[in-house]
């Protein structure tokens, strides 16, 4: 079911130390319901049942990277238009343009500020939601 507010986030990040900080940022500060996945394959397995409002993906992961994971998630009909946000340490203007071609709503630079992460994610979701 699609929500009119951002509630459920599917978050894919291989680093447990980073997930731990993001958990405080997204749950305690943002009040979101978050499904955490350490690998792209895990996200693909659980995404349909979780029905996220937003996909939040690390770009550089061992095995399946963020872009490949997103492409596979897009093959699930219910997630075809779900806003996606990437997180990466390496942002260059041409990379952001490349991501946008794949329907990525925004890119968050790492390291992120835990106090601001929820607000940034919400802002990107809002813009993508209004475009629908």
């Amino acid at each position, binding site marked *: 079911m699609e929500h009119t507010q951002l509630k459920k986030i599917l978050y894919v990040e*291989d*680093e447990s*130390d*980073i997930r*731990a*900080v993001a958990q*405080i940022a997204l749950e*305690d*500060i943002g009040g979101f319901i978050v499904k955490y996945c350490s690998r792209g394959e895990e996200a693909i397995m659980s995404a349909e049942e979780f029905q996220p409002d937003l996909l939040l993906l690390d770009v*550089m992961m*061992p095995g399946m990277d963020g872009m490949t994971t997103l492409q596979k998630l897009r093959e699930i009909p219910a997630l075809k238009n779900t806003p996606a946000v990437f997180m990466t*340490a390496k942002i260059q203007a041409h990379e952001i343009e490349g991501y946008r071609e794949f329907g990525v709503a925004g890119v968050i630079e*790492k*390291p*992120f500020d*835990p106090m601001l992460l929820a607000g940034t994610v919400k802002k990107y979701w809002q813009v993508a939601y209004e475009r629908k």
Partner: protein
Amino acid sequence: MSENDNIQDKLLALHAAYTKTLPDKIGHIESLWQTLQSNWEQNVLDDFHREVHSLCGSSALYGYHLLSAAARELEIYLKDIPNNKTAHTAEMDKHISQLLEKLVTAR
């Protein structure tokens, strides 16, 4: 205690826990490098690269900026090493050792 205090306490606790793991993380990277020096294998190089990348990202988030910058420098060098055992040279060994030394002392 306000909600904000509670969040700050949680973040501080995570920071303390992360700091305790740093010697093991760096020790593991050093150990992988020792293994590589005695036997240059692609899978060990991949592990070495991944651990350095991981340290680079996590240490930046936890405020260890010098450590992250040193890890990043090593990561960039490792990224350009070809997937070819025969391309491995003594000069590369020396350079990696120097970058790793910089990483170890940056903590």
